[in-house]
C-alpha cells in the first residue's frame, strides 16, 4: 500500500535533519504504528506523506503512485487526521461533513450512511447542527475522524489519534481501524501510547532523531532488545541507546 524510500527532510539549509533517510512499507490490511519521542520526526514524516511538506529527497509511493507526482490521485486514496484538529470553526458540524464529502466526491447515499453510522459511534450525532467553535477538543477530533472515514480511504493516516478522545471513543476508533484492515485497507498512525501500539499494531517502526532505529512485528522487536517484557521497555532501551 504505502512505500517510503530514502526519505529526507532537513531544515536550516541542511543543518538539522528532521527526517534522515528513512524507508518503510505498510502492507495492505496492516495497522502500522509509528513511534518515537517528541521531535523524533514523526509528524514531519506524516506531513510529507499527506502532501503538507515536500521531501528534500526520497520517494513516497501509494500503490505505485508517487504522492508528489500525482497528488490528486494519491490524496483521493488517503484520509488524514492531524494531531491538532484545527478546522473551520464557524461552520456547523454538518456543513463541514458535507464540504469534505463534496471534495472527495462521495455520493449522497454512501455519505449519509457512513456519516450517520460514524457520528453515532463517536456520539456526536446530536451536535452536528452546532457551530464547530462550540465543540470541545475531543468533539472536534471526532468530527475530523468522521469526515476522514467518510471517504472510506485505502490508507488512513493519523497523527496521535488517541489524544483527546474519551475511552469509549478510543475503543471505537481501534475497532474501526481493525475493521478497515480486515477489509484490506491500511492504517498508519503515530502514537505515544505504547499499550495501544502493542495491542493494535501488526507492525511498528521506532523513529529517533530522524532515523528509524527499529522496525517489525512485536516479536521481531523483542528480539532486538535485551528487555523483552513490553514495548515500553523496548522503546526506552532503543531510544536511550541512540
Amino acid at each position, binding site marked *: 500500500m504505502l512505500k517510503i524510500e530514502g526519505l529526507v527532510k532537513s531544515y*536550516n*539549509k541542511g543543518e538539522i535533519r528532521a527526517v534522515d533517510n528513512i524507508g518503510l512499507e505498510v502492507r495492505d490490511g496492516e495497522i502500522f504504528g509509528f513511534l518515537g519521542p517528541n521531535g523524533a520526526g514523526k509528524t514531519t514524516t506524516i506531513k510529507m506523506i*499527506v*502532501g*503538507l*511538506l*515536500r521531501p528534500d529527497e526520497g520517494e513516497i509511493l501509494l500503490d505505485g503512485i508517487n504522492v*508528489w507526482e500525482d*497528488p*490528486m*490521485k494519491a*490524496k*483521493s486514496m*488517503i484520509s*488524514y487526521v*492531524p494531531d491538532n484538529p*484545527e*478546522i*473551520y470553526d*464557524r*461552520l456547523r458540524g*454538518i*456543513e463541514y*461533513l*458535507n*464540504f*469534505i*464529502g*463534496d*471534495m*472527495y*466526491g*462521495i*455520493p*449522497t447515499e454512501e*455519505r*449519509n450512511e457512513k*456519516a*450517520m453510522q460514524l*457520528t453515532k459511534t463517536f456520539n456526536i*450525532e*446530536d*451536535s*452536528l*447542527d*452546532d*457551530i464547530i*467553535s*462550540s*465543540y470541545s477538543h475531543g468533539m472536534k477530533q471526532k468530527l475530523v475522524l468522521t469526515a476522514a472515514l467518510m471517504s472510506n480511504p485505502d490508507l488512513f493516516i493519523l497523527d496521535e489519534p488517541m489524544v483527546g478522545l474519551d475511552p469509549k471513543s478510543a475503543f471505537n476508533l481501534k475497532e474501526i481501524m481493525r475493521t478497515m484492515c480486515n477489509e484490506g485497507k491500511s492504517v498508519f498512525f503515530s502514537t505515544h501510547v505504547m499499550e495501544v501500539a502493542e495491542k493494535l499494531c501488526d507492525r511498528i517502526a521506532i523513529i529517533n532523531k530522524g532515523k528509524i532505529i527499529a522496525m517489525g512485528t512485536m516479536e521481531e522487536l523483542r528480539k532486538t532488545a535485551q528487555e523483552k517484557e513490553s514495548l515500553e521497555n523496548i522503546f526506552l532501551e532503543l531510544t536511550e541507546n541512540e
Partner: protein
Amino acid sequence: MNNKLLSLIRTDLNITFGLSSIAYNLKNKKKLLPMAMIGLAIISLLPSYLLMIRALGSFYDAFRQIGQQSYFLHVGIMSAQMIVFVLGMMYVMSKYYFSNDLPQLVPLPIKPSQIVGSKFVSLMVSEYLTSLPIILPFIVIYGRGGNEGLPYWIMSLITVVTLPILPLVLASVLIMVFMKYTNIKSKKDLIRVISAVFFIIFIIFVQIKINQLTSQNLMESESFMFNLARDANLLLNQIGIAFPTAMWGALALSNGFSPSGILYILLFAGTGVVGYVLMILLAERIFFDGLIGNIEVSARKGRGRTGDSAGRIRAGNPIITMAKKELLMIFKTPVYLMNSVGGVIILPVLLAISMLTGGEAYEPMKDMIMENREVLVLGSIGIIASFGILNSLGATTFSREGTNMWIQRTLPIRPKVQIVGRTLSSISLQVLGGLLLVGGIYFIVPLRIHEVIIILLFGVCASIPLTMIGMAVDILRPMTGWTNPQQAMKQNLNVIISMAIGTLFIFGAGFLGYILLPNYGIWTILGVYAVIIVTATGLLYKLLENMISSKFINME
C-alpha cells in the same frame, strides 16, 4: 511597568508585526522576493502621496491668507485623530475580542488590564503607520512655511508621539462598553453587524457633509482654497467638540516654548495619559464581561435535530460547495463581512446619497450624464469591475484559510474547483454591488433596460479577471499565520498589491475606451472589452491553475 506587561507587549508586537518571522526569513534569505514586492507596493503609492502633499501646500497658503495658520495644524491633528479613531474602532474590536491568542491569555495569571494595556500599546504602534503619513506633511509644511525654530519641532515630536493615544482610548472605551452590553447569547453576531452598518452610515453622513462643503466651494470656483479653508474652520468648530485636544495640540505647536505653549502641550499629552489610565481602570472592571461571553459559543448540546441531519447530508457539486463554504465563512465572520460587503456597498450608497443630497451642485453633472449615456454605461461597468478588487475577497481567499490550510492541501481538490468556487463566492458580492449601483443610478438617471443588462453583464464579467488577479497575488504569498481574522483582510498587503495591479487594469481599459469612444462608438468598445475580458480570464485561469498546483505542493 511590570514584567508581565512588558512581556505581553513584546510578544504582542512580535506577533502583530511578525518580527521573528521577518528576522528568520532575512537570516535564511527566505521569501526575499515577496518582501521586495512589499517595498515596491509601498513605493508605488508615493506619487499619489506627493500629489496630496502639494495640494496641502495650497491649503496652507489659503489659511495663511486669512491669518489662521494654526487652523491648518488643527485640521491636520484632527484629521489624523479622526482616522485613528475610526480605524481604531475596528482594530480594537478585532484585537481585544477576536484575537486567536485570547483563549491562551485568559487562563494565565494576568489581569484584564494587562491584556488590554499590552494590546493597546501594540495597536498604538500600528496606528502610527496610519497617523504619521497624515500628520507629518501638515507639520512639515507649517514648520517650513513659517520658518519655525527648534521649539516647534520638539513640540511637534511630542504631539506626533502622543497623538493616537486619546482617539484609541475613546475607541477602546466605546468598544468595551459596547461588547459588554451586546453580549447577548446567540444574537451577538447579528447585533454587532447591524451596529457596524449603522456606524458605516454615520461615516457616510460625515463624508456627505464634507462633500457638500467641497461642492459648494467648487461652484464658487473663484477662490476655492480660500472658501474651503474658511468653511473648514466652521466644520472644525462643529466636529471639534468631539476632539478638543486637537485644538490644544495646534495651539501648543503654534506657541512653541512660551508658557501657553507648554500649558497646551501638557493638556494635549496629559489628557491622553489620563484617558489611558482611566481606560485601564475601566478594562479591569468590564473587559472580561464582554470577552468571556465572546469566547463562549452557544450550542444546543444534544438537543440538535438528529432526525434532520440524515436528510441534510447530501452530495453537491464541489465547485458550488467551495463557493458556499467561502460565503458561509465570510457571513459568519463579522470582520470579513464588514470588509467585503462594506467594500461593495459603500461606494454605490455614497454615490447615490451624495448625488441626491448634493442639491444644485450636481445639476450640471446630471445634465452631463444624461447627454453622455455611453460614458455612464462604461463608467458603471468600471465601478462594478472594481468591486472584484474592492471586496478584498480574491486577494485574501487563501490567506483567510489560516491554520485550516491543511484541509485544502490534503484533500483531493482540483485547481478548477479552487479557482471557480472561490471566484464564484466573490462574484456573488459583485452582483449584489452591481444591483445596488444600478438601483442608485436609476434613481438619478432613468436607465434603459438594455443599459442595465450591459452594465451588469460586462461589469460582473470584468470583475472576474480582477478577482483572479487578487487570487494570483494571494496564492503567491498567502498570509496564513494570522492570529486574528482582521489581519487576514485589513493587514494583508496582498490586498494593496492586487489593488495596484487591478487599478492599472481598470485605468488601462478606461483609457482605451476614452480613445475609442469618439470614433468608434460604444458597441465597438464593448466588443473590445469582451475580447479583453475573455482573454484575461483565460490567461489568468491557466496561470492560477499552475500556481495552485505548484504552490499547494511546495507551501510549508
